[in-house]
């Protein structure tokens, strides 16, 4: 009896395994796809690799369908290779596999370190002058082509939002400096997301200056206590570094986008990075922005236990109106839409309040600053502002305008790129032209919940949500400037591990420390940080291999 069962079990196991293995070899793994009848190794099927990240892939399916429909005559096809989980590092490995082992034609991926991958160009392409990624200059500086297959009026480059356009230009000390290898498909704006119903409930206006922001937090904290509603929510378990998105904007507001960029690139006033790079940590913009964070970051202002919320848990509080705002990104809607569509679509991404100390330096009161900001938002000119606000100069108005128009983005975090050895290069490029056309942008906007960083004639879609409207407003207004912390990171930072905050335990957890630790005042962090970087500068140079 036992022997029979044993035999049965063995048979079943063997069967299961065979079935599995056969099923496995039935579906094609990563094998090169069928070449078209006319070309040797030229394919009409574009294989796109993308992951199920915060933005979902619904939009990609829609794009693929529309593309195939438009190019039915030519016989172009799209094959989607959707991966579970974030795959940036794996894609970096995959692209180095070369033409024999990798049939991906387009990568739409985040967390992909372009400079470090380009270093493998010679190893894979075996040719001194050929880069591992296909140059996209010929489509980038040309007009996009939509469903009607007609070139549009403006070139893609012209339509790109400023800042994002810069992200597309490859910067490095090798021979391909200045070419275009990547195109950024998503704006990924980040910043303060608000639930306006909470503000309305307690009679608080949406803040335009940082003083107003802090006052709003205080008011909601007092009035909302009885209702268990808090000014904001944050995710201390795994996302306290999101506060960076607020901090870096305030910094850029104070020191200007160029000041912020100098900080990123470790580019001191003297211009000699090797010798003086550490001086960028002395920028007073750092201190001023930290001061605001200091006042804002208070455990009383968020729900009990927020110190250990994960990001998804925190978002729930915002969506249901138990918190007034949180620092997050425009993927909020996509992540929450399953069951919170109504609530979250009524939330908004807020334009970052302007640093109040700017008002002080311009010689006006905070109320006046608020007024000036309002005027920027409603499209008034600098001259109008000078006239309406007593004590404000042209310079001041310009500074306020510039500050108001900055928004943070991790935008260059996701990139589209084509491996140079792709066997469907030409069709892939046509796909990208389609994706970045007016038609493509509209499809992405309709099916996805992120914006593409290219200006479009209209973003008219059916039933726009307040949320998406606010995102558009944040960026598509002609004057907005994005700042990023990633793509423009200097080689220095990329190689040595030098981050924004290095002295305190775990760099970016400085904001978590500000919550938990009285000692971590703005002044303390600023002083210790600058001292530390100055003393350790030689070490960082060594880590980066630059000394």
């Amino acid at each position, binding site marked *: 009896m036992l022997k029979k069962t044993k035999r049965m079990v063995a048979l079943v196991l063997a069967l299961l395994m065979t079935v599995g293995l056969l099923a496995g070899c039935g579906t094609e793994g990563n094998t090169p796809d069928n070449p078209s009848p006319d070309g040797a190794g030229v394919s009409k099927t574009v294989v796109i690799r993308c992951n199920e990240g915060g933005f979902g892939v619904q939009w990609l399916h829609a794009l693929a369908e529309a593309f195939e429909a438009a190019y039915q005559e030519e016989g172009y096809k799209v094959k989607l290779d959707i991966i579970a989980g974030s795959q940036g590092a794996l894609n970096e490995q995959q692209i180095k596999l070369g033409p024999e082992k990798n049939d991906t034609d387009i990568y739409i991926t985040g967390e992909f370190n372009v400079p470090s991958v380009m270093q493998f160009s010679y190893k894979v392409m075996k040719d001194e002058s050929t880069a591992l990624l296909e140059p996209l200059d010929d489509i980038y500086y040309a007009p996009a082509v939509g469903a009607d297959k007609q070139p549009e009026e403006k070139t893609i480059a012209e339509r790109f939002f400023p800042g994002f356009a810069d992200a597309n230009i490859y910067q490095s000390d090798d021979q391909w400096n200045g070419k275009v290898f990547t195109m950024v498909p998503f704006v990924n704006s980040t910043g303060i997301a608000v639930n306006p119903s909470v503000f309305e409930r307690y009679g608080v206006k949406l803040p335009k200056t940082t003083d107003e922001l802090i006052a709003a937090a205080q008011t909601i904290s007092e009035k909302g206590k009885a209702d268990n509603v808090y000014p904001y929510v944050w995710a201390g378990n*795994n996302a306290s570094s999101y506060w960076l998105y607020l901090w870096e904007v305030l910094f850029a507001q104070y020191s200007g986008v160029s000041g912020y960029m100098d900080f990123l690139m470790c580019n001191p006033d003297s211009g000699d990075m090797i010798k003086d790079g550490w001086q960028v940590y002395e920028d007073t913009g750092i201190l001023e922005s930290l001061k605001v964070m200091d006042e804002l970051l208070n455990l009383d202002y968020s729900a009990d236990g927020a110190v250990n919320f994960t990001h998804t848990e925190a978002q729930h509080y915002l969506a249901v109106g138990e918190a007034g705002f949180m620092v997050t990104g425009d993927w909020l809607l996509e992540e929450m839409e399953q069951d919170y569509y109504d609530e979250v679509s009524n939330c908004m991404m807020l334009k970052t309040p302007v640093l109040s100390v700017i008002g002080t330096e311009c010689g006006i009161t905070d109320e006046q600053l608020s007024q000036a900001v309002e005027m920027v938002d409603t499209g008034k000119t600098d001259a109008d502002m000078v006239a309406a606000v007593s004590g404000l100069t042209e310079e001041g108005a310009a500074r306020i305008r510039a500050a108001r128009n900055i928004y943070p983005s991790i935008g260059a975090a996701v990139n589209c790129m084509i491996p140079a050895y792709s066997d469907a290069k030409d069709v892939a490029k046509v796909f990208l032209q389609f994706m970045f056309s007016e038609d493509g942008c509209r499809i992405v906007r309709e099916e996805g919940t992120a914006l593409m960083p290219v200006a479009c004639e209209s973003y008219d879609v059916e039933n726009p949500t307040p949320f998406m409207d606010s995102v558009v407003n944040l960026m598509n207004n002609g004057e907005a400037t994005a700042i990023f912390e990633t793509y423009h990171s200097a080689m220095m930072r990329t190689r040595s591990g030098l981050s924004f905050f290095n002295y305190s335990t775990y760099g970016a957890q400085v904001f978590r420390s500000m919550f938990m630790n009285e000692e971590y005042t703005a002044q303390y962090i600023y002083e210790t940080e600058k001292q530390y970087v100055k003393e350790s500068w030689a070490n960082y140079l060594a880590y980066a291999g630059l000394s």
Partner: protein
Amino acid sequence: MTSKEKRVRLPSQKRRRELLFVGLALFWPIMQFIVFWVVPNFNSIVMAFRVPDGETFTIVNFQRFFHELQQPNSPIIPSFWNSIILFVVNIFVQFPLVILLTYVLFKKVYGHKFFRVIFYTPAILGASVTTALYRYLISANGPVEHMLDWMGVEYSKQLGLLGNPETVFLMIVLYGFWTGVGTNMIMILGAMNRVPDEIFDSARIDGVGFWRELFQIILPMIWPTLTTLIIFSMTGIFTNSAATMLLAPDAPEASTIGWYITRFTMSAGSGLTGEILNYPAAVGLIFTAISFPLIMFTKWLCDKITNTVEY
């Protein structure tokens, strides 16, 4: 052929056949080991001596480690002590407790079969599920907080149990207790089951009590198994990171060396933070160098004790 010649030839022929068998049997596993383990992992040792430009041999990563070690706010020393504490608590508190509990199960207390399965469920569920469940248990206004309120224990609701720097490491330790019973339990149970029945029968006749039986009979008998478990625990001293990673990744008070290393490895992959793999590779090597002699010493110590018992 005389019988004498036959006897002379037999040992060497037998030996040759033996060695052939051994060689054939071990050929594949050793080749597999070299190809799939040694080759890729050798690279990680090499990486410790390089910088991202790829080619030069340098000890910069080790220098960085010692430099970071000396910073006043460095997470390295606290992480080191946390790793050690987790190990010590595991061996000197959790272990004896599990032995006692397993012994009771061995004694077939009422419902022991049911309990055996239940206690093993954390191992079955896997870390990502158990940590999610644990977080729920100790979350704000969760069951544990309710119980603490009922008991009148003071704690900060604002920070919560996992968010409070003073209690976060304790929660990590307790998590280890909560999930750590199962795997050791089945090993120890297996060992107890192999103790010959005659010994128990004669102990009963001699009127040996519960505690004497445990300490003077069972413990020495299962000592080799305990040794293995202790050694296994030691191998994980500096690689243990799962609890911190899943429960309190951003809390410096809960960090372990394993997490310190893993953290760098994870952000290195993303290309966002500018981290590189060479540094954690070097740190990993340093702690391997520290833990290996420790393990060998412990093994020696345990073997000495083992040699006093043989069955």
